[in-house]
């Protein structure tokens, strides 16, 4: 009895959480008149008609696939370079002795607090000085190093047994080789966590690409969609088609990697 009640509550809540997304997907296949006609009944959530016209229109009106490509490319590069650079620094802070190490690490930890929003304008000026406005470089380079990720990596490396590296050192392996051939392989969990978190964060980036890019050539998906949304004539169905295409692939990836993503987010939360 209690189980049935629980299922009813869960089902109601799940419906509440899913109905906006369901409406979005279903509406993307309807024409404008149909969307509004279905609004006042449960038909709003039922595919009463099926047409790909909205999707055709999206591709005709904006370079949608290019936006997706831009986003995938720059977010992946931030993630890959970030994993390398931050893990190397964290390894130095965890395992190497060098002058000024503790002071430098204290500064890195202090920098975790600085919110991006408070440095927006000076960062824009710096990137402009480098001549990187409207470029992939300007989208990627400022976000490779990440103080919090260095902190996460260091926590993990500190907990690795030292014997792991010592036997390799006796065998005469170089530090770089020890890092890549011994430390990295046993650190897959932390690399996965940091990688996923980096990807999710930057996939949702909006403010920086909004002010930094003025050209469709380097404009990522989020910014491109916002411009499409405000570009007359606003057609519900077409915008819904664009939103669906921007969301469905991520939702599908999420369903497959659910366990890792949940673990990753939970871990980053617990570590603090």
């Amino acid at each position: 009895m209690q189980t049935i009640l629980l299922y009813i509550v869960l089902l109601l809540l799940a419906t509440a959480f899913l109905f906006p997304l369901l409406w979005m997907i279903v509406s993307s296949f309807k024409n404008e008149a149909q969307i509004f006609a279905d609004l006042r009944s449960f038909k709003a959530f039922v595919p009463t008609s099926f047409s790909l016209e909205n999707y055709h229109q999206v591709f005709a009106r904006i370079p949608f696939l290019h936006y997706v490509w831009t986003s995938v490319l720059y977010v992946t590069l931030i993630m890959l370079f970030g994993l390398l650079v931050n893990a190397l620094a964290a390894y130095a802070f965890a395992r190497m002795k060098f002058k000024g190490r503790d002071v430098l690490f204290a500064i890195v930890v202090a920098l975790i607090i600085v919110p991006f929003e408070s440095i927006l304008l000076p960062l824009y000026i710096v990137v402009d000085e480098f001549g990187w406005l409207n470029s992939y470089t300007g989208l990627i380079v400022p976000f490779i190093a990440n103080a919090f990720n260095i902190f996460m990596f260091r926590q993990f490396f500190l907990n690795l047994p030292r014997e792991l590296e010592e036997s390799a050192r006796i065998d005469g392996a170089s530090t770089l080789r020890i890092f890549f051939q011994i430390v990295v392989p046993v650190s897959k969990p932390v690399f996965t966590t940091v990688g996923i978190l980096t990807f999710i964060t930057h996939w949702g980036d909006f403010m920086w690409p909004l002010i930094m890019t003025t050209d469709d050539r380097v404009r990522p998906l989020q910014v491109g969609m916002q411009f499409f949304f405000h570009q007359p004539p606003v057609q519900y169905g077409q915008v819904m088609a664009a939103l669906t295409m921007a969301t469905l692939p991520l939702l599908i990836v999420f369903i497959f990697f659910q366990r890792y993503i949940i673990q990753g987010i939970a871990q980053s939360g617990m570590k603090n």
Partner: protein
Amino acid sequence: MKQKKKRTGRSRFMRSLPGYVFSAPALILLFVFLLLPALMALYYSFTNYYLLLPDQTKFIGTENYVRLLEDKLFLRSLGNTFLFVGLVVPLQAITALMLALLVNQKLRGIRWFRAAFIAPVMTSMVVVSILWTFIYNPTNGLANAVLDIVGLGPFEYLTSPTQAMPSIVLMSVWQGAGYQMMIFLAGLQDIPEHLYEAASIDGASTWQKFLHITLPGLRNVIVFVALITLIAATKLFIQPFVMTQGGPLDATKTLVYMVYEEGFKFRDVGYSSAIAIVFFVIVLVISIVQRKLVKETQES
């Protein structure tokens, strides 16, 4: 003697070298793209730097900060930010905790329910904001259509100065609750099962177990979740930017919105920087409170 000293000096540097090499890329990037801009923001906030007239930049002391105190729009934005924070933090945390308790049961298909609550988190804030602008449309929106069926409404949502912020709050809770649910879930799974078993033997009710085992066991997690939400909430920008452009009648202007507007629309770098610094100080205070609270809970 001299030579010897030089040699040990060099060899000490040589021993330090790998550490420098490994950490240099990250440190240089952090310096150029985080520390330097932060210092620049602080400096600009004491100048009249105007993006189109960089040559006329002068040090003007605390003038920008004095101007802030008299700027009705700034005070409004500050108030709006606090209003959003005050509403969204408790609402979202309580929703997330309820969801976490619900999905922390061993039930068939529970994975799918979890996925349903996390689905909005996987949807970017821009997508969510655009979608909900349609949902909130007073005449052609889903929200009023659904409420009409149960005889409620119609509401004006984003077009009413009193309803706009609560509407953004509701949407933000819907989008973000799943994220905190995941953190609560991990916290719940860390509470030892035997505590509940012992309580059951003693005849404790579900409510008593929640009050005396679950809540104390989650204390650190609750503090953590509340504070990350607090910090995230003070950064409110995308929702008002996409949905209301700060309107109606500045009802959804926020601190970060003003940083953006003063800086990039009006090109007043000095003034925008002063707002950015005020924003930073607020985040800093929250972070210091967080550290204190976490320390206290760890010690007790």
